[in-house]
């Protein structure tokens, strides 16, 4: 269980997250949506202990603030909004970085690690790119590699900041489908997306942020189209929800 209680984050005098509390059960793919600059990325970074904050964040009753960096990264895998690889490294080396939380300073990946990395790349049909320079890949391919690395890490909490941002229509669905398939009964995924329909299709819970606070919290297993419209109306104007083949879609009126 991920438990966030009375979270408060500020950049200087500007409050970004104001007294936010929520909890997420294992087995949940939780989407975090909101207009630009409503604190989605800040909330994700705070849970990762990358920003100073007031309040508590707990995962399986462990206070995330008190954990050492290595312990924390064994529990949480994180995909930032922008891929952080800056120098020419092979795709395989970028993948092998995923085992880093398990390694001590002088450890190096062995054959088993390499095979696991190649197997994970194969999920997105990228194993033939294993020895290519990561920087020469398209933005979409880079995103897929970083996602396979995060999935390979098998952590109990996966945090993705706009994992679909650089992807085409087909790859967006492939990536979300894979994230969904990886949510076993013990795992939680928390992700930000801008496409409400992607969130409605794949997430089983959606938290909507506005004005530094949670403005709506939708459990999609029980939410009606009316609940969805009411919830999303807090962050988007002039919208309607239509139903097609038993699924809900948001459209601009």
């Amino acid at each position, binding site marked *: 269980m991920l438990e966030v209680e009375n979270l408060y984050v500020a950049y200087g005098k500007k409050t970004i997250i104001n007294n936010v509390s929520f909890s997420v059960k294992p087995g949940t793919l939780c989407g975090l949506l909101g207009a630009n600059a409503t604190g989605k990325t800040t909330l994700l970074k705070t849970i990762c202990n990358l920003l100073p904050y007031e309040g508590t964040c707990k995962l399986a009753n462990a206070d995330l603030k008190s954990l050492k*960096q290595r312990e*924390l*990264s064994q529990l949480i895998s994180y995909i930032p909004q922008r891929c952080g*690889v800056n*120098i*020419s*490294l092979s795709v395989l*080396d970028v993948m092998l970085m995923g085992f*880093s939380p398990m390694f001590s300073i002088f450890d190096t*990946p062995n054959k088993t690690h390499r095979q696991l990395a190649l197997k994970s790349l194969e999920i997105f049909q990228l194993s033939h790119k294993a020895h290519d320079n990561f920087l020469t890949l398209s933005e979409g391919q880079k995103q897929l590699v970083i996602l396979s690395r995060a999935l390979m890490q098998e952590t109990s909490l996966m945090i993705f900041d706009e994992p679909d941002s650089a992807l085409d229509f087909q790859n967006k669905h492939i990536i979300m489908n894979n994230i969904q398939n990886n949510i076993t009964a013990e795992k939680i995924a928390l992700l930000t997306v801008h496409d409400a329909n992607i969130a409605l299709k794949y997430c089983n819970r959606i938290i909507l942020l506005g004005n530094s606070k949670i403005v709506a919290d939708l459990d999609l297993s029980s939410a009606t189209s009316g609940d969805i419209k009411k919830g999303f109306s807090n962050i988007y104007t002039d919208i309607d929800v239509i139903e097609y083949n038993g699924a809900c879609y948001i459209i601009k009126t």
Partner: protein
Amino acid sequence: MTSLRIKYFYSIITILFIISFILSIFVGKYPLSIEKILAGDAMQLNVFFNLRLSRTLMAFLAGFTLSLSGYVYQTIFRNPIASPDIIGVSSGASLGVAIGIVFLSGSTIAVISSAFIGAMSAVIFTIAVANMTNKENITSFVISGVAINSLTSSALMLIKYVADPEGELARIEYFTMGSFASVTMDKIFYSLPIVVIICIIIFKMFRLITLLSLDYDEAKMLGIPVKQARNSILFLLTIAMAIIISITGRISFIGLISPHVVRLVNKTYSVTSMFFSSLLGATILLFSDCLARSLGESEIPISVLTSFIGAPLLIFLVIRGDRKC
């Protein structure tokens, strides 16, 4: 670039290194012959062990370590033109030397010690200033490095201004141009083990070094204590470079040029390319030292040659690289 061409390139570096090492032992004013050395000729053995071998080993060690440092700096600072000078190693050592010559006894041990202390102090100061900022980016390192370099340079100029122009000033200037002329087996004996151990540790830490090239958040979420890891690596390299520079004086360009040359052939950062980049640095320095000993009546300072060889080579390779793109 195919992997076969990269293998050829690495083979050429290895062959050139072997040639430069052998050449460095046999080139010089006093001719050496293998037969006489094997026959136990005292003079030949003396020149071989105390002059040529020590000098060759130091040139190898200096070239290898400076290039290794350059490669690591360029990885951590994510900048192909980063070099150890960026955080003040050389300027700190030069200031240390000036203090040793002008304000201390000026003896060899005083000069070497103060050069070492100067280099270490400059880097520790740079790291401390960079760590005082809240920003976790490398720009704070570069800016504090520029500030420390300026401070040490102005202090050095002040010392040069008050130094005796006949003796002290000449010694300071000579240090800043670098030379292997004063290398002895004793100096090798004290410096080699520490430098070799540091180089081995750095190679073992290559995985960590590449992780430090990632953006701060990503590296941290892969379990890396970024600040501590970066500071430890820079500190280790500084010890190795300070030891070398305090013995040989300032050696320009090697730390910058060889990683750049290797990456123009093989762009991907790997432990293999780091090794061959270091070996290339050793090779260039060994050849430069051979030239320094044989070009004129008296020895030419080593940095004159490394800059003369390095700068045009770098310009050529950059232009060639751009055209290929």
